[in-house]
């Protein structure tokens, strides 16, 4: 198959992969002095931290804000081996950068990135020196953000909560291409933000099998419905190769406080459970591999077939890890899973 530029798919992906390797982009290893080192150069495993608090909800239908803040700090400090809760954020972003927080709100209030988690992150970002006006919390539509409990605001002097569908934002006119994907990306990603922190939610997806970090990028482009066939494979992997995504992606803070083991991605309470956790990583493939394991374990507990047996194998994870994509590792032997 040839791309519109006349390159074969293999040629194109090879170019993308080489570019990713050259830039060390898409996944980072953070040295103790705060320098960013490509994993290959560091010879390190991809670290994934899963932090949990069984009392996160207490008796409330929403997580306790103080406990969420503490859990976030715990996860970040373990990931960065940091003695304090501010230093990790100073390693992640620089004060002059415009930081985009890409949430996942399509499932509404029952199964979206929790506003209380976003509040905890924006608090730490500001303490790390990022001005409120340089923080944008975003997803594809204002309506979804609103329904998930975010107070919409596009005031440039404060933290913005805004959807790509806002009239003054929209999608970049450039059509980006990688493998099977031809798409336009949100101007919030391509133009407004210098970097992106990915804040997905841990869910089953009846097409993709698993949705966490990589699949959350389906909320970044204008035609995600075109890439759901064949269990979203290689659509998810190809989309994440696009330079604006690959180069601006900085870190994943996965919301696993309430998660979903079947019937996803929309909210069905009977298939959701309180995992009471946060997952953090710089490698989106490693964290998705971990997410897959968590969902399979829960499905087994509930007597359900594996995702593959149920016809929704998350094959895109292995494709994202292949040499042509190089977005991270799905090899458990190269993932350092730290549960705290």
């Amino acid at each position, binding site marked *: 198959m040839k791309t519109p530029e006349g390159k074969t798919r293999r040629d194109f992906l090879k170019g993308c992969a080489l570019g990713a390797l050259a830039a060390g982009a898409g996944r980072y290893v953070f040295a103790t002095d705060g320098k960013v080192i490509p994993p290959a150069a560091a010879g390190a495993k991809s670290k994934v931290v899963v932090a949990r608090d069984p009392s996160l909800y207490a008796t409330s*239908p*929403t997580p306790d804000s103080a406990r969420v803040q503490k859990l976030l700090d715990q996860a970040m400090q373990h990931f960065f081996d940091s003695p304090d809760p501010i230093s990790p954020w100073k390693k992640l972003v620089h004060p002059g950068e415009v930081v985009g927080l890409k949430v996942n709100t*399509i*499932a*509404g*209030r*029952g199964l979206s990135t929790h*506003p*209380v988690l976003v*509040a905890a992150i924006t608090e730490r970002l500001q303490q790390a020196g990022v001005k409120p006006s340089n923080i944008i919390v975003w997803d594809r*539509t*204002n*309506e979804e953000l*609103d*329904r998930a*409990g*975010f*107070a*919409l605001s596009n005031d440039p002097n404060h933290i913005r909560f805004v959807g790509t*569908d806002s009239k003054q934002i929209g999608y970049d006119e450039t059509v980006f291409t990688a493998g099977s994907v031809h798409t336009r990306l949100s101007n919030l990603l391509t133009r407004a933000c210098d970097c992106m922190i990915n804040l997905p939610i841990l869910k089953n*997806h*009846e*097409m*993709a099998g698993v949705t966490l970090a990589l699949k959350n990028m*389906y909320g970044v482009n204008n035609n*995600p*419905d075109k890439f*759901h066939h064949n269990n*979203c494979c290689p659509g998810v992997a190809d989309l994440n190769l696009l330079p604006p995504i690959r180069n601006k992606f900085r870190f994943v803070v996965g919301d696993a406080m309430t998660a979903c083991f*079947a*019937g*996803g*991605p*929309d*909210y*069905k*309470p*009977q*298939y959701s459970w309180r995992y009471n956790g946060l997952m953090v990583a710089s490698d989106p493939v490693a964290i998705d591999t971990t997410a897959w394991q968590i969902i399979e374990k829960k499905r087994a507990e*509930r007597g*359900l077939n594996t995702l593959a047996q149920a016809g929704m194998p998350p094959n895109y994870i292995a494709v994202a890890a292949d040499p042509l994509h190089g977005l991270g590792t799905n090899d458990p032997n190269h993932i350092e899973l730290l549960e705290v």
Partner: protein
Amino acid sequence: MNHSLHRIPSVALLSVILCLASGCQRHTASSISLFPESGEVSGWTKAPEVRTFPADKLSDYIDGDAEKYLKAGVRSTSTADYKFKDQFQVTVDIYTMSTADGAKTVFESEPAMDAKTPALGDAARLFAQSLIFRKGPYLVRMVAYQDSPEVTQAMVKLGLAVEKKLSP
């Protein structure tokens, strides 16, 4: 950022203002007959807005979940929010399929788990915070956002009222 029931009117108004271009159609309550109005069922209040998504816009509402409905022949989907005595909120989705087989296909595709089976429509499943039933070409899904002892009983009563409005 709370999800108080008192937000329903403001949420509806804001969403109308912000999302006129989102692809879904919006109706005043009087133009939609499938949803019971406020007061028709004791304790239940309906938000004024009903959103309707044609098949080709369903993914705007439920993302990748739309695929299984499309494969089963969905024609349109309407959704409305309700609240019960200021205690909890419920979203009601009504999927209109081309055939009764389509509704059955989607219904049967979801794990029954430990569901109860109330006498509702052609088949129904009741969980702690959700109720799903089908009747002819219609598939109805109710989702509650809080858990309380009254939720299931109240949802069944609302479900019976919806069932009466569905043509076979």
